[in-house]
């Protein structure tokens, strides 16, 4: 028994550090590639590591008007939430560490925690810019959480019909049984629509342009993060990097869980290695398409425009996807 616990702790540490490392590497790519697309040279790939190290040694300023304990707690909470999230995601071919102790609904909540932590931290900072940012983040969450939930639930529900008796809300089951092949043509279109809505939700969930409204540097001077500095800012930064990986892995797990090992009939350690490498490539592709190119190609929208966009077209698309998946069952 104790051996299992030691094993689990050991694995947990590897996943946490691996996730953070991965997040920062992807962030480096994000910055470098965005710069290249904008006609700039851009920072070196290891710049995010420099940034975090530098932030860690910088002074951690707490504004006079801030609610100190809340203000300092929130970055930690954000990092803890995304760290926990990593334990529930099937990274590569591996089974999630805590796969048996939580499901898709928990993942939805864990995804919301970092944003909520930033909202509370923003309000606790006691700065007008942070307050405006926090209000905007709340409005944003109300806008994008609904299509996100619809997407998750529709897929899980459809799978429960195909595979009765399985723990359908477990991400492992979802990743092991890609829906694309299990549904008819109508369901396929429905899945495509759900994928589209998740694709649009991803940059909003990660607060990247055109949805970086809560931070909006030129408008509210960094908004939520305006007052954060030093260690606290580093934790938010790390949390953001990990969340990007988590969100992309989630998309991969839901829509592209295919591995290469079976295709080439490779088994054992080499098979695992190939799958992990392929998984990393898939995550990169998702980040590249859904985050980097989008943030390079758009202007920042206004919060009212974003709310309209998510409540009407995006929710509409995801509801239509759900409807088509339901129809598919009866055809």
């Amino acid at each position, binding site marked *: 028994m104790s051996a299992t616990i030691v094993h689990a702790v050991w694995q947990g540490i590897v996943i946490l550090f691996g996730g953070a490392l991965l997040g920062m590497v992807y962030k480096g790519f994000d910055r470098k590639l965005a710069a290249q697309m904008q006609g700039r040279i851009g920072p070196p790939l290891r710049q995010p590591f420099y940034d975090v190290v530098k932030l860690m040694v910088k002074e951690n300023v707490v504004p006079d008007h801030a609610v100190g304990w809340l203000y300092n707690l929130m970055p930690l909470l954000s990092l803890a939430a995304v760290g926990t999230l990593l334990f529930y995601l099937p990274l590569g071919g591996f089974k999630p560490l805590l796969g048996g102790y939580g499901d898709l609904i928990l993942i939805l909540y864990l995804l919301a925690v970092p944003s909520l932590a930033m909202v509370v931290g923003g309000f606790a900072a006691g700065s007008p810019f942070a307050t405006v940012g926090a209000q905007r983040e709340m409005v944003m969450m109300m806008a994008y959480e609904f299509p996100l939930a619809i997407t998750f639930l529709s897929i899980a529900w459809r799978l429960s019909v195909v595979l009765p008796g399985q723990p359908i809300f477990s991400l492992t089951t979802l990743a092991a049984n890609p829906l694309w092949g299990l549904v008819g043509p109508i369901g396929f279109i429905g899945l495509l629509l759900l994928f589209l809505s998740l694709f649009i939700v991803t940059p909003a969930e990660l607060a990247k342009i055109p949805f970086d409204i809560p931070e909006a540097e030129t408008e509210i*001077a960094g908004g939520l993060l305006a007052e954060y500095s030093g260690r606290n800012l580093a934790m938010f930064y790390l949390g953001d990097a990990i969340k990007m990986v988590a969100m992309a892995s989630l998309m991969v797990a839901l829509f592209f869980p295919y591995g290469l090992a079976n295709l080439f009939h490779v088994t054992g350690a080499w098979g695992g290695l190939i799958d992990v490498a392929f998984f990393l490539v898939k995550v990169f592709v998702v980040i590249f398409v859904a985050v980097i190119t989008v943030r390079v190609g*758009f*202007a920042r*929208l*206004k*919060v*009212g425009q974003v709310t309209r966009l998510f409540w009407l077209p995006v929710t509409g698309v995801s509801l239509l996807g759900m409807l088509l998946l339901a129809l598919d069952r009866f055809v």
Partner: protein
Amino acid sequence: MNNRSIDLEVGGSTACYSVPVGPVHPALKEPIRFQFELDGERIVGVDIKPGFVHRGIEYMGMRRNLIQTLYLAERICGICSISHPLAFTQAVENAAGIEVPPRAQYIRTIIGELERIHSHLLWAGIGAHELGFDTLLHLVWKVREKAMDLLEQLTGNRVDYAIPIFGGVRRDIPKEKAPLAYEALDYYKRLLQDLIDAFLHDKSVEMRTRNIGVMTYDQAVALCAVGPTTRASGVKKDVRVDMPYLAYADMDLHAITPEDYGTEPIGDVFDNIIVRLLEVGQAIEIIEFCLENLPEGELTSIPKVPALLAALKKASGEGIGRHEAPRGEVFHYVRLEEDVEEMAVWKVRAPTYGNLIGWVPKFLGDEVADIPIVAASIDPCMCCMDRVHLVDGVGAESVKTKTELVRLSREKTRRICG
């Protein structure tokens, strides 16, 4: 004035809280303070407080000889670093009765229009940045470098070109440099349509700028707005067209409004983009015309600087100089007295001064998220504009009415005149 009064109230809402923006804020490139009255995210009132970057340039200029002051005039604005000297030299030439040879007039025009290209592109980049569209910022500023390079090749400097002098220009544009200019112009001709596509056919830019920061035709006329800001509202006002000077009289020019793009002028930020991008095209045409028709002849009517200084010392009288700077009309007033090396009076009116009050109708009814782009839409230049600083009434914040200001300036004039 009464029949022109305009309504600057927003009906049906009450201000619940006020938010200060500035003097230091990422949306502002230079210090100015806005006090916004907000109803939710909607702006229902705004007070503008300039005066953070008054440098006393007019005072300094009145204590130097005219050629030294010319250098100072060049440094009133870093972007309009040819517009102020152009207006200033015209004012002094006007006062002293100095003629400018045609070739010098054409060279001044060429540099002035090159400045318009780089200034409008700079503005477009900043506008994109305020919208959170950094890709466009980097691309536009990369394109802008070509104009800066050409200016450096023609004058030796990227900014502060030191080209005009009273009675002419200091450097020629020789024949062998013309291909450089043509190459740069071709580059911009090729890219202009791409720029127009990137800004005017982009959905997200349109969503952020259409019907935002509106100044109607009537407001623009009543508030005496100048430059692209007023032309975006459909007012056909352009010093180059209305009172042609330099080489502008020789060509067929018209004031660019959104109608040239085929849309009805609204006076919003989108229209400002249209006008400025089309003016880049107009500037290319003007430079081409000037290069093709560059007259032969002298560069300056009084080439020797000591002779020029002596002539200026003998001169007396008043003169005005106006130039359509990229941001709008820049106006210099100069009074010279006989046997005095310095100017008796120097008055500079930068374009931002004319557009400042236009911010009020532009802001009203917009949202907080629109503040940066609306503030940037008039292409403000605070330190060129700040010309008054109250030094008495220490500590207490004081607002002077028009009557008081007139009384104060009359007192000052009497003091100067002794």
